[in-house]
């Protein structure tokens, strides 16, 4: 993949733990700890992992919702143009903010209940003085049609809409500034199954229509497999595996990825498996174990796994697409 829209380089986000009256820092939660990946132009890159693994923190770091601890976030609006977002201050970021947008998980709390749909979607246009009132209304109508809502409902308030419809409003809001890159954080997780499929199809349609690239963050492997072109699996602030969707689901190489896939209940009563268990709990990101963070739960852990942290390395055969794994025994253990 030669054309990259976003490149994350050794990204770290540590949240300080402060104690006592003087608020002295006594430690840090390493929410994201040295993550590298690239998102190709027009690609849907999926980030999957258990809650607390740092996947949402990465999404918010890219949008610079906070200052990052270290690393680089390189945004490339067009080929051969590279902009480093990680070190920018708020004033420098402002003109870029419209190009990187976010779709939120909860369509109930992410829309202001006191604003009409037209005000919610049109607000960025108004604040940036890009259009006058009539133009804004026209633009809002067009967006509502694009996301599958009736433009004549633009003067209604969010409470008048169902969860799926609200998510469509949230999507229209993200698209109004014509972004190039969209972070969708658990964008379909709160929806009913029948509506979830509608929104997934809508995201695919809009990607083509608006030439978007997505970072799609989800805990749901089935959704990730359906939507994404490449996938990164996270565990305790680090990527443990990155591969194309097909390679990852056909031949997962990290024991954690294998375990994660094996515990998804298959909707087929003729294929019942006793749930293969992943014992123990996710490691504490404030005090992770030594070596490979997954070793206390890994059924294949050996001495080296306790002592040495494995690097994320490419194990694909020459000529094949990249398949990165952070495991000392990648390809030798598991299924």
């Amino acid at each position: 993949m030669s054309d990259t829209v976003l490149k994350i380089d050794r990204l770290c986000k540590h949240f300080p733990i402060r104690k006592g009256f003087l608020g002295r820092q006594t430690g840090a939660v390493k929410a994201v700890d040295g993550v590298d990946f690239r998102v190709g132009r027009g690609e849907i890159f999926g980030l999957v992992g258990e809650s607390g693994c740092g996947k949402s923190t990465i999404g918010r770091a890219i949008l610079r919702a906070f200052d990052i601890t270290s690393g680089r976030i390189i945004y490339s609006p067009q080929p051969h143009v590279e902009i480093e977002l990680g070190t920018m201050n708020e004033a420098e970021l402002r003109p870029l903010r419209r190009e990187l947008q976010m779709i939120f998980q909860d369509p109930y709390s992410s829309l202001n209940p006191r604003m009409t749909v037209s005000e919610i979607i049109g607000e960025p246009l108004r604040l940036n003085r890009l259009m006058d009132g009539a133009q804004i209304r026209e633009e809002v109508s067009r967006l509502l049609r694009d996301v599958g809502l009736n433009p004549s409902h633009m003067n209604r308030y969010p409470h008048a809409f169902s969860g799926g419809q609200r998510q469509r409003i949230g999507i229209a809001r993200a698209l109004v500034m014509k972004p190039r890159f969209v972070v969708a954080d658990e964008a379909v997780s709160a929806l009913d199954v029948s509506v979830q499929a509608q929104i997934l199809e809508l995201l695919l349609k809009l990607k083509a229509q608006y030439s978007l690239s997505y970072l799609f963050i989800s805990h749901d492997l089935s959704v990730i497999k359906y939507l994404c072109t490449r996938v990164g699996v996270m565990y305790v602030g680090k990527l443990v595996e990155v591969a194309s969707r097909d390679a990852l689901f056909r031949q997962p190489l990290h024991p954690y990825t294998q375990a994660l896939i094996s515990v998804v209940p298959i909707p087929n009563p003729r294929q019942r498996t006793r749930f293969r268990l992943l014992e123990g709990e996710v490691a504490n990101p404030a005090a992770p174990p030594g070596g490979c963070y997954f070793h206390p739960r890994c059924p294949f852990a050996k001495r080296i796994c306790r002592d040495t942290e494995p690097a994320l390395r490419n194990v694909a055969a020459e000529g094949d697409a990249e398949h990165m794994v952070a495991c000392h025994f990648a390809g030798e253990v598991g299924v």
Partner: protein
Amino acid sequence: MTSASQTSDNTLLEVQGLKTHFFLDMGIVRAVDGVDFRISRGQTLGIVGESGCGKSVTAQSVMQIVPSPPGRIIDGSIVYFGSNSAVEISRFRANSREMRSIRGKEISYIFQEPMTSLSPVHTIGNQLEEAILLHTPVTRGEARGIAVEALARVRIGEPERIVNEYVHQLSGGMRQRVVIAQALSCNPQLLIADEPTTALDVTMQAQILRTIQDIQQESGMGLILITHDMGVIGQMADEVVVIYRGRVMEHGDVIAVFDEPLHPYTKALFDSIPRLDTDRPLRPISGSVPDPFLETTGCPFRDRCPSRFDACDSDAVPALAEVRPGHSARCYLHSGATEEGTE
């Protein structure tokens, strides 16, 4: 109305014609509007449906914990076949002595969100002991022993330490285990689990489901598993009830329902879920679940149904008809029968 004398076979609970409505200022919500099912000892019944379909209110009706007012069971019967006699639960008042002796002892309930059923200001041990002391003639010391055992049964490590801890000291998965331990502490005959793993990660979900399976195997309790997740149903249930807008749309053996779903709604649910085991394209269901206040006539699914035909224009609700032995559907495609009183 079922006569309670039919203590046939292994039946544990029988629900017939259940209607639970909510009388609100804005109108009446017919949350449960004609639900029938039966569950045997040791069996797992899956109740599946989207949010607002009435699956939780069905379960709350069985436990007599429907918030009232505004909710009220207005029709139907719920018969529980206890160890030696059959009792009609639907006749008891929610706070009656009879109901309190069944709730938590014979029939237990697990909520989706563990914090709904746990107190933040009591230790785990105290909360477990409360239920044990209420239902069994034991001393406080013995109750502590039972509580520790109950925690060990749901595979909580170091139960002797955990009994002295508070809820905020535990992770989400541990909390849900405590809730299950609490529900199982009095060895219920029937466990109703309402989306027990929806708020959890898949790894934790697998541990919890496995724990429930193991306990069911060793104790032979019946399980009503309420979920929107077809995967969980596919792995756990013996029989499935599919609910839409307060009515059972399809009911049958899990293999029959998954192999050959009869109702277009069930088929549409299967077609709209992304899954790991196949690569077929999704076919979303058009529209969304209608406003609960909306009064409708005829088939509740017809406005979203891809198989709608002339007969569906009828104002009468199709009856739940047995299409094959043990496999029924509420759909004019399979039977022209209509539900009484809806014409």
